[in-house]
């Protein structure tokens, strides 16, 4: 609103809706987090720290303690993309319907390095990176009174599919919560955020890795990248380098290299490629 992207006549507050802030876990249903749970509450949850370390680390690196005490999970996922052209009232960019992405030839040091041909903005949620790696599902109440579950991988919408919206949320839709699968034996996870500042800053690059290990051998793996593309993405190429392998430095390095296959950095953000190489390798090395 401050940046002039929207000018509502009415705002409907949802903070007072009861039971929308619960954090519950069962071995059968997994972890359910209500949309109104604050990032601070997620950060302080010992259960999340124990079973979903990557999520704990992602929320712990968001904003500042004061912001985490007010920012909610639902709000974090529903926030708009990060791009100074998009968030400038003076620029009618691709996402505002002009067909022109000014970041392509402009100031693009913080922008996307993958899938960035039409719009190079990046989604601002670091929490989404961790949720994507955990194969979370988003619960949505629709305006016509229905409830639906959407995999995190389908929740965010690439600008080529919908230039005006970053998520599948339609008018009247409300995020009610997120569910993560129950933690399996041997599940390990880690998250790393790289930013210009340690606190109160966006991610220039972040990664969440979730793996199921038997000893050092990786049975299954998921590698999610944030601030790499207009939406948080999974690197299947990186995961494939891990699955079936005994984790060690060379495997981690190979997966890190694979994570950047297909990268198309712009003039001023090629530095992100080696940054991702480094943080992906480090995150994998923290698993075992």
């Amino acid at each position: 609103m401050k940046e002039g992207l929207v000018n509502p006549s009415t705002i409907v507050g949802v903070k007072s809706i009861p039971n929308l802030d619960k954090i519950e876990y069962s071995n059968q249903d997994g972890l359910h987090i209500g949309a109104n749970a604050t990032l601070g509450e997620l950060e302080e949850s010992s259960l999340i720290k124990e079973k979903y370390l990557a999520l704990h680390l992602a929320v712990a690196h968001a904003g500042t303690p004061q912001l985490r005490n007010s920012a909610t999970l639902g709000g974090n996922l529903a926030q708009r993309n990060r791009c100074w052209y998009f968030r400038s009232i003076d620029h009618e960019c691709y996402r505002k319907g002009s067909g022109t992405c000014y970041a392509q030839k402009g100031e693009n040091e913080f922008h996307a390095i993958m899938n960035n041909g039409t719009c190079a903005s990046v989604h601002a949620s670091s929490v989404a990176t961790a949720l994507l790696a955990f194969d979370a599902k988003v619960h949505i109440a629709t305006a016509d009174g229905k409830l639906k579950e959407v995999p995190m991988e389908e929740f965010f919408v690439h600008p080529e599919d919908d230039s005006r919206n970053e998520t599948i949320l339609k008018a009247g839709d409300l995020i009610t919560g997120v569910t993560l699968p129950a933690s399996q034996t041997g599940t390990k996870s880690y998250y790393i955020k790289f930013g210009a500042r340690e606190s109160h800053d966006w991610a220039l690059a972040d990664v969440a890795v979730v793996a199921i290990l038997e000893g050092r051998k990786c049975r299954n793996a998921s590698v999610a990248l944030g601030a790499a593309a207009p939406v948080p993405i999974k690197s299947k190429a990186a995961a494939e380098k891990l699955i079936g392998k005994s984790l060690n430095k060379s495997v981690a390095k190979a997966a890190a290299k694979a994570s950047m296959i297909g990268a198309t950095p712009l003039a001023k953000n090629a530095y992100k490629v080696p940054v991702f190489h480094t943080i992906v390798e480090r995150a994998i090395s923290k698993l075992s």
Partner: protein
Amino acid sequence: MKKFSWYEAKSIEDAMAKVNATSSDILGKEQDGKSGSVLKQGVLTCLIS
């Protein structure tokens, strides 16, 4: 930033009803397809940015 009114919903159904009742002029419906209730969630988090 122009003036806006604030409605604190008591339930999901209440939020939906308010959004639908003000559908013609609530923010997202005209401008970006997002609902006012979603906006509130977004506003809280915009603080992070």
